[in-house]
């Protein structure tokens, strides 16, 4: 699925990266804990988060997240938008809660990147 379809599904406003909405989203992950994103996400995933600061964008860049969607109508400040523009990471915002946004995307067929903890224990993290 491409980002512009997700924008429609979640009624997103765009804070940065309007020119990058043709990007493919392969997986979804949702967390406010950036270490969890670093541990359990995959390259090419979409990140849903309620955490809005420069480390959100920095974490996305390091973990090769394809796009960030801020939940519950949260707004980024100028420093966050500027950082997302610089790193070419689309930054969007949805009025939906984290739970609703995840449900909508999961129902639309976007698989999870954060596997069940027991799968990790079994060494299936790749």
């Amino acid at each position, binding site marked *: 699925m491409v980002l512009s379809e997700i924008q429609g599904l979640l009624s997103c406003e765009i804070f940065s990266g309007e020119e990058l909405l043709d990007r493919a989203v392969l997986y979804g992950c949702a967390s406010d804990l*950036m270490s*969890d994103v*670093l*541990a359990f996400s995959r390259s090419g995933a979409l990140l849903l988060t309620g955490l809005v600061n420069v480390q959100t964008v*920095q974490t996305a860049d*390091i973990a090769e997240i394809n796009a960030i969607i801020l939940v519950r109508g949260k707004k980024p400040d100028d420093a966050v938008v500027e950082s997302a523009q610089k790193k070419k990471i689309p930054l969007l915002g949805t009025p939906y809660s984290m739970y609703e946004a995840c449900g909508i995307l999961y129902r639309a067929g976007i698989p999870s990147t954060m596997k069940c903890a027991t799968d990790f224990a079994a060494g299936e993290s790749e």
Partner: protein
Amino acid sequence: MDRPISHSFLIQGKNFYEAGRVSTEIKSMLKDLGVDAAIVRRVAIATYEAEMNVVMYADEATLTVELTSQAIRVVIDDRGPGIPDVGLAMQEGYSTATAEMREMGFGAGMGLPNIKRNADEFSIDSKVGKGTKLDITIYIN
């Protein structure tokens, strides 16, 4: 790539705004050198977690990255409080983070376990009142 490539960086403690700059530089450097993308991602994640630990807890650190045709070795040597119980710090979920660190999305007790998870070789040496040294290696092949 016969001769090893080595670079050192200084990481400043308590500077949350700059946190991640060194890891980003290392990531682009490895990409430019043509290192496999999956390897680059593991190095970047391990380095970023280590960098955040320095920013959150230490005064400053020297990070040295060394690249040979077989492996990438990263050594992070900090001047800081040290870790009294390394075994405890290695447990997922154990954290001594402050509210400020948690507001940044860190301090969930996943940093050191995440570094270890991404490394092929991992060692940690910490002296209370002096600092902590992490030595990690990620194989290229």
